[in-house]
């Protein structure tokens, strides 16, 4: 017996023609992201099961790349460094930008524009070029930062080896990264602060709340969307960080005694230097899983409605 739709349904189906706009746009997006997203991803998965240098050798080795990855101490080191980066970037980045935004918020008119301009300037600089400048500023013991810090705080220049020391190298890179994007974060916070109605502060002041109290009880909670947004963006960036580390600790790659080795660098080295594309791809898969988890977390956070 033929399956037939009851007449009513059939009519409805015919009434909806194919929307050309939807067709064009959706199809373009589909094709593009298949080529640029889905295909590389599938290819990458396929690579993780192989041992290949792309030309003289290519064979199937099953899950062994993952097994080797788990047994590779440099991989774990890189993973730790990425999370360390995430923690510092997000926390210090947010705090500094919040403080600066709070300060700038209290100014008006021309001065406010000047301050915003000054803090935002590093954002428009090229990361590649600025990483170089900072590498020179960080020159151990006799460089600019070393002299300034030793002059201001009396720290012996012997201890100020920045990128040459295993304990401070990654931190120094993070400081540069935080410095550069402070402007964007500050501006986003400022915009959020501008939207908070004065009446809220008024009523708080009448009730006798100090400025600080107002800040913590009113400002910050109402900035939650911005906070989440920024935490999201910068945590993803921390897992994917590449240019600052590559430019500032490029030779040897990964800094003194591998203290700035991060996943992207590790992946790049395995693939293009070690000619082990399967191994590099396996690292990429790990990164993907982490990013996937992060994005899921952030979507959940975004979807919560914050009511006051």
């Amino acid at each position, binding site marked *: 017996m033929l399956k037939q739709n009851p007449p009513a349904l059939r009519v409805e189906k015919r009434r909806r023609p194919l929307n050309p706009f939807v067709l064009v*746009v959706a199809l373009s997006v589909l094709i593009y992201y298949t080529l640029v997203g889905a295909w590389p991803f599938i290819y990458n998965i396929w690579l993780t099961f192989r041992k290949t240098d792309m030309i003289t050798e290519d064979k199937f080795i099953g899950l062994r790349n993952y097994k080797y990855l788990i047994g590779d101490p440099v991989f774990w080191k890189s993973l730790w460094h990425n999370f360390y980066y995430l923690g510092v970037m997000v926390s210090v980045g947010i705090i500094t930008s919040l403080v600066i935004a709070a300060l700038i918020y209290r100014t008006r008119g021309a001065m406010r524009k000047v301050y915003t301009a000054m803090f935002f300037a590093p954002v428009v*600089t090229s990361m590649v070029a600025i990483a170089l400048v900072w590498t*020179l500023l960080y020159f151990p013991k006799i460089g600019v930062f070393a002299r300034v810090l030793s002059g201001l705080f009396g720290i012996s220049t012997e201890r100020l080896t920045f990128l040459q020391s295993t304990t401070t190298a990654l931190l120094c890179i993070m400081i540069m990264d935080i410095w550069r994007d402070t402007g964007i974060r500050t501006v986003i916070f400022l915009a959020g602060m501008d939207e908070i109605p004065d009446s809220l502060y008024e009523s708080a002041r009448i009730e006798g709340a100090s400025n600080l109290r107002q800040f913590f009880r009113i400002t910050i909670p109402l900035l939650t969307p911005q906070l989440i947004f920024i935490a999201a963006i910068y945590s993803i960036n921390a897992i994917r960080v590449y240019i600052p580390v590559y430019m500032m600790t490029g030779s040897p790659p990964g800094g003194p005694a591998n203290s700035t080795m991060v996943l992207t660098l590790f992946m790049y080295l395995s693939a293009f230097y070690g000619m082990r594309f399967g191994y590099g791809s396996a690292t990429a898969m790990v990164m993907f899983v982490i990013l996937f988890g992060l994005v899921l977390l952030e979507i959940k956070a975004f979807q919560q409605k914050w009511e006051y």
Partner: protein
Amino acid sequence: MANPKGMNRYRAVKFASKFSLHLVLILGGLLMIFPLIWMIVSSFKPSLEVISVEFRFFPKIWTLRNYSRVFREVQIGRGYVNSIVVSSAVTAFVLLSATASGYLFAKLRFRGRDLLFFLVLASVMIPPQIIIIPLYILINKFGWIDKYQGLVFPFMMNAFGIFLMRQFMYGIPSDLIEAARIDGATDFRIYFSVIIPLVRSSIAVLGILIFLWTWDELLWPLVVVHGNEMKTLPLIMAHFTQAEQQFPGESLAAATLVIGPILVVYAFFQRHFVRGLSMTGLKG
């Protein structure tokens, strides 16, 4: 106010706090731009002075040698052209695709919409370093290695842009769209006449962001550019520093040439940069 002395004290305290506020901000601002100032000043020092045992902020010997060497060794003019062409092309494509997709995802319904959106979302999670290999293979098949098309294609659509535009378009009242539909307008028409004008400011924001991000892109040009002709500025910069590690003066000159013009543009248009970003409309 009954107490004039108290009034003065109040004014004094208020002035002091205002003063210290501005002082802190000025110092902070100067600290922020200090590396840029140092970069420009030091680019006029001979390389041996940039890193030297005796510390000077201003050059002992002012020299243009670094700049002349950069111009001689490197086709920086060509780099500018390439960067401008590529960044502009990408920005144009992204704005077009992001607004169209934003509208699509925000306001139109169709089968598989959520699945398609998930595909876009997933592409963000793939680390760029590993897209490189299959992408290289793909671009090679198209014959676009070492050409503008190869530089532009991987960036033509931007997931972040799509998210942003979708977010904005949620805020557009659906009645406007319904009204236009009743008037018989196709979605193309609605897109051009209704949607675009409404999100003009966010287009400006997105445009600026995409332009800056594309300008700064290093990894992909590193892989896809083979000859001298197609290098973009960050690539020129990276190559120059790698090859000329010993000559920090020249690297600083190259850095100034790469960063300088953008800073100048920024100085003139900074109002727009900042205002645009503040309208990211992040409502809870």
